[in-house]
């Protein structure tokens, strides 16, 4: 079974990399881990946090995408295989790779904060971001907000677009910083390699 799992790594930058897995890792939800102690009970997260020298600071699992944020300066080309091996071995072992997110009790501070942030970010996306990117046939979907980190997915003309990083970093990030300053970061969990209709397409050497 292990040999059949296909994983494609797509570095976002030197700190963050998305791993697209050929089978669902966490169906129907998103789970974010900000520290190794949060990984207990989720074998995949435990395995990735335990990779020597990687210094994982954040892990986000959504559907068939695993996004890893590391502190190590080593390039993803050098350390990505260890993450791939951890994903393969965990999924290959069977059982639940990632435990579903615990529903915070009503009134719990972080839940309230994330819920409130979700509403604000969703409104920003609906009212400002999406009408703008729609002019290029794109859309940006808010997946979740966890610990004030926004997880989003790009679609349509934005998926696989050669300028997607510019849209994200120069556009959406700045808009979020202004409109929802409590947001601490953004993680793009888009599978850009599957974009079938990117608005701008790289073609030059």
């Amino acid at each position, binding site marked *: 079974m292990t040999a059949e799992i296909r994983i494609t790594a797509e570095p976002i930058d030197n700190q963050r990399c998305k791993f697209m897995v050929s089978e669902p890792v966490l169906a129907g939800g998103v789970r974010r881990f900000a520290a190794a102690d949060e990984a207990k009970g989720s074998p995949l997260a435990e395995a990735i946090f335990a990779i020597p020298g990687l210094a994982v600071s954040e892990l986000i699992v959504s559907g068939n995408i695993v996004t890893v944020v590391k502190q190590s300066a080593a390039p993803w080309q050098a350390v990505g295989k260890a993450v791939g091996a951890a994903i393969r071995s965990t999924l290959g072992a069977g059982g639940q790779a990632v435990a579903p997110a615990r529903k915070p009790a009503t009134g719990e501070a972080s839940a309230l904060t994330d819920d409130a942030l979700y509403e604000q970010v969703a409104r920003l996306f609906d009212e400002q971001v999406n009408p703008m990117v729609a002019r290029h046939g794109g859309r940006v979907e808010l997946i979740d907000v966890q610990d004030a980190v926004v997880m989003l997915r790009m679609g349509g003309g934005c998926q696989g677009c050669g300028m997607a990083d510019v849209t994200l970093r120069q556009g959406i990030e700045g808009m979020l910083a202004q409109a929802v300053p409590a947001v601490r970061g953004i993680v793009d969990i888009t599978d850009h390699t599957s974009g079938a209709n990117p608005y701008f397409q790289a073609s*030059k050497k």
Partner: protein
Amino acid sequence: MPRLLLLLPTTTYRTAAFVEAARQIDAELTVASERPSTLEPANPAGFLTLDFHNPERAADDVHVFARKHPIQGVVGVDDDTAIVAAAVAERLKLKGNPLHAAVAGRDKHQQRERLAEAGVPIPRFARHMLAEDPAEVAKTIHYPCVLKPLRLSASRGVIRADNPQGFIRAYGQLKGILAEPDAAACGEPAWQFLVEEFIPGYEVALEGLVVNRRLHVLAVFDKPDPLDGPFFEETIYVTPSSVPAGLQTAIADCAERAVRALGISEGPIHAELRYNERGPWLIELAARPIGGRCSAVLRFGGREQGAGSSVSLEEIILRHALDMPIPSLQRERQAAGVMMIPIPGAGKLKEVRGVAEAKAVALVEDVQITAHPGEHLVPFPYGSRYPGFIFARGETAAVVEAALRDAHRRLMFVLESS
């Protein structure tokens, strides 16, 4: 925090690498492209739309923009934007190349004239108009020769001819390419072409950074696959080069003479040279960094050189433009290589199989498929867009090259014939 103006065509592969490098050095970034971002109204300081075909007008626009958002550095990432960057640098008195030097780096005919005047070894060349009778031109040429468009990139339209019949055939192909809308948009340069003596020999690529008119060699890449035509599709680049040290010095000297002859004073250069029993020959030199995603194989500094974390080529380029300290210009000790995956044929891409298997090859660090499903792949000489890149790193250039070839054998591109 310094503000950097990054000139990014919407067709570049370089966006992520340069945007990330700007984040690494904490620069405020303004991204200028030839087409507007739909998010420009939300971040007027972060976006700019410029006419890359009109460097003077672009410089005027930047001058106006900079009154409100002062700019401390400007970087172009490809052939066209290198010229715009030079025009902006001259206008705003920023670090950069003189405009005439950047233009000479872009225009293949002007470049050869300057290099020939300076005595830099280059192939014999002549410029011809497309309107000339190819049968007549064919009679005047020494064979084998190479036909080249004046402006296109990535060896698109570069065709070898071994005799008059081959020349006429190549002329027909080139004429068709230069009539395509993107090529024709170049204007006058698309009505002309170069005919150049074919130089037999081994080809290398040299990556460098010019600082105050002095060339610093960052890497010399071997190109182990012979580039003898009829088309000149690049495949593998590996570094360090296996060329003997003395010859590498001669190659670097040749490139430095070309840099001086063209008047390049600051910033990245990418040069292609050949050598044979008569020594090194300069084939092309551009005032821009290596293209595609190939720069990912280059890392500089790092703990092995006592310089902390390693840095990317893009970070070095941005630091240089902003007068920030550069930790190291010394490439890492390990050998590294990249394969520009050959275009597998003509047709609509349905899927790519074997990516996981290719990535699993020892020493292979990444396989990036940049063609998207449904994309029409166009082989050389008409096309030039590689469908992806394979990266590997190891102890020697030989094992890196073997890993790249092994990984490539495992890939299968499934096309719908067009």
